[in-house]
């Protein structure tokens, strides 16, 4: 199946029922969040499945960046790098006194 952007395609399912697909237009702006939600809602009302890249925002920080995790897998980092030395723990205890 290959249908043009901005057009619809009816698909007959195995039980004889139909679904309608609507491919996003080529000039569609996938960075517009409100427009994306509006079109999805419109599709629900019209009983159409909107297809294509509906929304994109590459600027958002992913979970691993948010947590400031190191690039090396945690499992491969040696104990001396992940375990604070005795002095650091003693200092912490002093500060909590």
């Amino acid at each position, binding site marked *: *199946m*290959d*249908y043009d952007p901005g057009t619809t395609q009816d*698909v007959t*399912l*195995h*039980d004889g*029922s139909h*679904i309608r*697909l609507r*491919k996003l237009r080529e000039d569609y702006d996938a960075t517009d*969040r409100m427009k*994306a*939600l509006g079109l*999805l*809602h419109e599709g*629900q009302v019209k*009983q159409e*499945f*909107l*297809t*294509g*890249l*509906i*929304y*994109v*925002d*590459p*600027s*958002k*920080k*992913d*979970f*691993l960046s*948010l*947590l400031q*995790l190191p*690039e*090396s*897998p*945690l*499992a491969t980092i040696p104990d001396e790098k992940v375990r604070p030395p005795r002095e650091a723990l003693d200092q912490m205890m002093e500060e909590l006194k």
Partner: protein
Amino acid sequence: MSSVAEPKAPPTNRRGLTVKEYGGLKSTLCVGCGHDVITRQITQAFYEMGVEPHRVAKMSGIGCSSKTTAYFVDKGHGFNAVHGRMPSIATGSALANPNLLYIGVSGDGDTASIGAGQFVHLLRRNLPMIYIVENNGVYGLTKGQFSATADLGSRLKTGVVNDLPAMDLCALAIELGCGYVARSFSGDMKQLLALIKGAIAHRGTALLDVISPCVTFNNH
């Protein structure tokens, strides 16, 4: 004197690998299932993008769709989680080893019904992974009961009508801040391939809701 042409070597990608090296086990799904088409496009996308197979981590839950991670990139890592619990396993794995490319394949039952609680937190955390929902509106493995994405008014073979509204996974994902939200149809291979390649390149959760009607239980 006649000469015999040497067999042509199959094309390779930038890693020097053929598309066959991105394959997996033979599918055991129903003949004609759209999920197998999605598997082929995942395989092709990984090949074309030159992803190293040993850097792939395939995550899944339970359902027809969740079986499909066995059908591609058999040199990658894999974890088949409890029903609807794939997001937490994927989160733990990604925290432990951020150097792998995570791809989750789930179904609408696994994602939108029993797994809805985990799915929404995966989205709001923006875990770097490709999350493909092979969406057919039914629980295929347990004989076709409605899932939470079944259209209002859909009718089962037994005559039962779905009286509940469908969840729109794409709208839900956008609401929760997902940075790559796409929908396709299993029969539209060209569009599907382009969207999977885009998802591989995206840093963050990439949700692909792929409509893939069930050939056995027919619902949508």
